[in-house]
């Protein structure tokens, strides 16, 4: 297992959102988290990456066997945990390419590798841009500023491709995407599947799951994982909704 979440309790403000959540991500697998609005899906992703809104009151998050709860957000990122944001924020005046290179070089430095100069970096980037169907001017614009919904999500995937993380959390990656963008984004994600990286796909709708085949479906309801099954669960959810799901005995995926 690459990520092991045990009995996780998380507050946002004074409100308890996650109430004893258990989840194990296996190496090289795609885990989808589905659940109704307000069930705690985004809180889960925020807690994993150390977002300032979240306060872990109980439980543990182990990444490669080590607790990450004491780690700063940037340390978790450098160790290989990546979150594709549901709503990527705009940062005016910050050149996208400069940002991407800074992030990549921070990672390379962390790994004891040589930093890339601008020319080397552009070579790395060029292929990714084409694959994602992104115009080259997108990297010379300000970070996410004035990007359409689809452009923002493509830019998230571009960052994922460049940073090559090991645990990839995709929070509502398909929201606001038209069919072309969805396809491009999915291709980007599928390209990252190498049998080692793990994915946590947080989604409301099953649409994205047609493109990124999940190995496991977890249903999150009222702050807990209430059901874990294979991809066949998607159909059941589509027919009966979340109301039909009852909490089962904690079921651990193979490890």
């Amino acid at each position, binding site marked *: 297992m690459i990520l092991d979440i045990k009995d996780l309790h998380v507050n946002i403000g004074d409100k308890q959102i996650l109430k004893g959540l258990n989840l194990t991500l296996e190496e090289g697998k795609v885990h989808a988290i589905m659940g109704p609005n307000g069930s705690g899906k985004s809180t889960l992703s925020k807690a994993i990456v150390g977002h300032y809104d979240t306060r872990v009151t109980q439980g543990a998050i182990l990444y490669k066997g080590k607790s990450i709860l004491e780690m700063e957000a940037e340390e978790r990122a450098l160790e290989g945990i990546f979150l594709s944001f549901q709503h990527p*924020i705009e*940062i005016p*005046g910050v050149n996208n390419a400069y940002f991407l290179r*800074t992030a990549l070089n921070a990672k390379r430095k*962390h790994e004891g590798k040589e930093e890339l100069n601008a020319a080397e970096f552009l070579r790395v980037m060029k292929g990714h841009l084409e694959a994602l169907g992104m115009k080259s001017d997108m990297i010379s614009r300000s*970070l996410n500023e004035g990007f359409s919904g689809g452009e923002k999500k493509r830019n998230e995937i571009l960052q994922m491709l460049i*940073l090559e993380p090991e645990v990839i959390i995709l929070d509502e990656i398909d929201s606001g995407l038209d069919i072309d963008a969805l396809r491009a984004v999915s291709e980007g994600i599928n390209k990252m599947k190498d049998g080692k990286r793990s994915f946590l796909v947080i989604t409301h709708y099953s649409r994205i799951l047609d493109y990124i085949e999940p190995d496991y479906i977890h249903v999150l309801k009222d702050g807990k994982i209430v059901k874990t099954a294979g991809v066949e669960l998607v159909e059941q959810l589509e027919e009966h909704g979340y109301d039909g799901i009852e909490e089962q005995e904690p079921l651990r995926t193979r490890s």
Partner: protein
Amino acid sequence: MATEEIDNIVSGDYKLGFEVDIETDTIPPGLDEDTIAFISKKKNEPEWMLELRLKALVKWQKMIEPQWAHIDYDPIDYQAISYYSTPKVAPNSLDEVDPKILEAYKKLGIPLEEQKQLQGIAVDAVFDSVSVKTTYSEELNKHGIIFCSISEAIQDHPELIKKYMFSVVPMNDNYFAALNSAVFTDGTFVYIPKGVRCPMELSTYFRINALNTGQFERTLIVADEGSYVSYNEGCSAPTRDEHQLHAAVVELITMKDAEIKYSTIQNWYPGDETGKGGIYNFVTKRGICKGDNSKISWTQVETGSAITWKYPSCILKGDNSVGEFYSVAVTTLAQQADTGTKMIHIGKNTSSTIISKGISAMKGQNTYRGLVKIGANAVGARNHSECDSLLIGSQCGAHTFPYLESKDMYGQVEHEATTSKISDEQLFYLRQRGISEENAVSMIVHGFCKEVFSQLPMEYAVEAKALLELTLEGSVG
């Protein structure tokens, strides 16, 4: 300067007046006619200059220190300031310069040596109040460009000085300008002849060095018809505890079709987080676009000083003339800045642009104060103003006071103002990509300042970025 030397100066038994040893390096505190006469004599000035100085002193003595700015400081005792000091030895070449000074220059990144010269920049470095070295004068001479200290200009080019000094900033313009007019000790004079495009960036570094010595620079730049010059002024000062008064005056004049681009990086000691120490920077900078189609552009990056009071302005007299003001002002610790510009539209079809970026962190207070005035004859005048403030933390403040006076009913004036906080979401986004909090803040701040930095000459932009980083170090978290 060693402690005992300082003690000697402070407790030294110098006497006021003409008996003062002309060889002395620093005169005791105090300001009266004798002080002025001393300075003038020390500078070997002609009689007419002394008379002008004395006239300014009389005007200043009748004036009252302005209180309208949004700044707060203890009253200044003008009699407690020493109005003249020079480095120990006036050197003829770099070899003679005190290695400690050279070391300080190096630390401050002041490339007085060959590196800079190779890059084509002439340096007239002002150490305390006297020029230490002027370079590249020969190359400039070829083009008929005059680039020298104001003291030299008073002796060598009296006709130009008499004609232009006080013509943009009259000696009684304001309290600090009057003070400067009486006691200015050095500064720069630039004259670009007709049709000449100055072949290099001109650059002067100022540095305040002697304890309790106010610095009163006087700069005058005249660009004759069809000429162009880019002038860079960069400043920094070492840490010290005493408040220091700095009241400079800069006058710019552009004739028909001429352009002056004036860039400043200011990084004087800001004092500590309680407001102790630091430099008072009360500056009058003004340019006049005298001829048609002329242009004056001010770009400033202000990170230092305990208090900044500064409004680089343009009088757009010639038809179609253009005035620009690009500013980044940073206040952190307990710094206060009241800065902005005045764009006075007199000629037809004159246009002005104001881009002001204020950054406040810790207990810093940042005020933008700007005036756009469109005269009755300024048909077709246009102004575009953008004033943005960025707050880092919750104890700092940003204030905006835009004033507009328009006598031309068709004048076109746009004003936009925003205040934003560095959002936690922006910071988090960058940190989630592995960028440290400190780097994330500087990235956001640089983004905010981009429009202004892009106006700076390349290497100044690099310097400005580094400076900004240094200034905001530790102001977050």
